């Protein structure tokens, strides 16, 4: 009943093309951002409810935000430009190790610059591995990205320069000092991740609405037709690879620095790539909101399956839980592909559409 756009008139083209054309949406998003930026840190400050513990930050909120960012990156490539990638984990690894090496070898650089440069490195590699996409597509491209995944797994494991010759191959992130703001407690780390994610989500949302986003979508829908219409596939595909890899690289650097603190070479293995791909598929291909929904789902499902039977007093072994996670994730992917190929994001849109008419649909 509250969700009606009656009486909201648009008098300019810009107002009509706004990201959130309906006032209620703007209010809802404002409230959500206020909770995320002010409410949760306040709750943490005064140790109210679950936010008094580090657990919710370390195990849920921080990974959720960073994985959402990575999913946004992958969604540009797979969801908007239609190029399937099984190499998300590799680009996260490139971001993490590049940021580590920049911070280690060029200590004068501010940390923010190191992280962005790390994204730049990932973007360069992304362009390199995107070149085959000009000749091949679909499944063949999936293999090319797999090549990236395995090659970089190996590179960071075997070439010791990247890990600064530490004997175990495990490396530690430097102190997180952003222009004097030392990020230490979980709540501060959460704020940092939140700022990155919000900034990139807004940038990407605008990119996908603009010229370049439309080119990506044209390539996705039918590349030959797009080419005939004057879209340069070289430019469109490689820019998708570059921007996608940049964001995934930044997400990787954040994952390593902000979430993990210290990490091993195989942290970013093929499982991570699949996880990202699933987030994008389940959340919704070609939707920014979907990235968040998918990341939340994939992250929370194992925790949920682990905790709920315990709370209900049913003993379930760790192994069974991990197998159950496999089965449910797989079943859900098949189910969503059959019932709703656009994922949770589309379900959300349908719900909103229904809500406009509720409770009198006629």
């Amino acid at each position: 009943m509250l969700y009606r756009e009656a009486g909201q008139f648009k008098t300019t083209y810009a107002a009509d093309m706004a990201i959130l054309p309906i006032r209620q949406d703007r209010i809802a998003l404002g409230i959500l951002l206020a909770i995320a930026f002010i409410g949760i840190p306040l709750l943490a400050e005064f140790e109210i409810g679950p936010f008094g513990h580090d657990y919710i930050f370390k195990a849920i909120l921080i990974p959720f935000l960073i994985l959402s960012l990575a999913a946004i990156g992958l969604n540009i490539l797979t969801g908007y430009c239609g190029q399937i990638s099984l190499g998300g984990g590799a680009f996260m690894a490139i971001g993490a190790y590049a940021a580590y090496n920049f911070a280690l070898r060029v200590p004068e650089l501010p940390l923010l610059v190191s992280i962005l440069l790390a994204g730049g490195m990932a973007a360069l590699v992304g362009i390199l591995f995107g070149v085959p996409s000009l000749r091949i597509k679909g499944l063949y491209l999936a293999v090319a990205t797999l090549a990236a995944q395995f090659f970089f797994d190996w590179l960071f494991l075997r070439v010791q320069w990247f890990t600064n010759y530490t004997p175990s191959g495990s490396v530690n992130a430097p102190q997180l000092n952003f222009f004097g703001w030392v990020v230490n407690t979980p709540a501060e780390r959460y704020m940092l991740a939140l700022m990155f994610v919000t900034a990139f989500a807004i940038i990407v949302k605008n990119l996908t609405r603009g010229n370049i986003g439309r080119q990506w979508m044209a390539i996705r829908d039918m590349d030959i037709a797009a080419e005939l219409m004057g879209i340069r596939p070289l430019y469109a595909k490689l820019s998708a690879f570059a921007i996608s890899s940049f964001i995934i690289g930044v997400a990787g650097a954040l994952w390593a620095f902000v979430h993990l603190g210290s990490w091993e070479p195989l942290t970013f293995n093929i499982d991570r790539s699949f996880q990202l791909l699933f987030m994008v598929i389940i959340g919704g291909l070609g939707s920014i909101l979907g990235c968040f929904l998918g990341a939340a789902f994939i992250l929370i499902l194992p925790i949920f399956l682990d905790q709920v039977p315990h709370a209900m007093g049913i003993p379930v072994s760790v192994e069974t839980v991990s197998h159950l996670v496999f089965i449910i994730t797989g079943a859900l992917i098949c189910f969503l592909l059959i019932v709703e190929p656009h994922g949770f994001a589309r379900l959300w849109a349908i719900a909103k559409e229904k809500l406009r008419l509720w409770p009198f649909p006629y």
Partner: protein
Amino acid sequence: MEGLGPFFEVLIGGLLAGVLYSLVALGFVLIYKASGVFNFAQGAMVLLAGLALVRSLDLLVANGLPFEMAVVGALLFAGAIMAVSAWLIERYVLGPLLNQSEMTLFMSTIGATFIIEGAAQMLFGSDVYPLELYPTDAWIIMDEVFPGGILISKLDVWGGLIAGILVAALAAFFQWTRTGRALRAVADDHAAAQSVGIPISWIWFVVWLVAGLVAVVAATVWGTKLGVQFSITFLALKALPVLIIGGFTSIPGAIIGGLIIGAGEKLAEIYLGPHIGGGIEYWFAYVLALAVLLVRPQGLFGERIIERI
């Protein structure tokens, strides 16, 4: 001559190991040829077949059956499991996705992979189970030509023989049987095949069943080599570069691709590996495939895809 002995040993070992990759790749090609579905679940199917086989074999032997009988029983059981899973996949995953895009079908098989992996380990356990169906010792040949001779694993030779028989049987099946022809028609165009009266769900069931049986065969060889364990599913990923090199639609291509990958990665590991850090077997196959893709996107034997608007 000293340099040549080890070279041939590595080469032959690599070629024979490559045949084992081909065994997995064959399952992919079969399904791709017949239904246009790129079946990512093939590796998971090998795991499922292997687990079903080894667990039922252990159970039968523990109940006092003679080994040969037990093997036959276990093979039948594994075959039955594959038939059930083929039916389930056709009925609940692919059937509803008929006439969808190739990418959707591919992603649905990734989903199926996870279901199969989870279910297989839940039903049959998730440890490493040793399997001994073939001799695992080695021959030493040509020791009068090369110092020390050339070591050849009997298991690899068995794998090669089995792969050869499978390829011949499958080629005959595709070429000369009514069902085989129907399979090829379905691959060309789902809708057109349906409209001339080919029962598409039956065809898909058959092709998944055949791929499942190929998975059983692959599982016997790989299970003997590595023990039946979860890491077998990664074979599926190794089969991808084999397919890229051989071409997605060619059964002989799968074999030759396997040979190239097997020999290439072993030789690279021995002669190139020490210079750049070792362990390059891990990625060599993929990078080789990438290089082939850039030069010949359809693979060595694949059909050229012509696209229209």
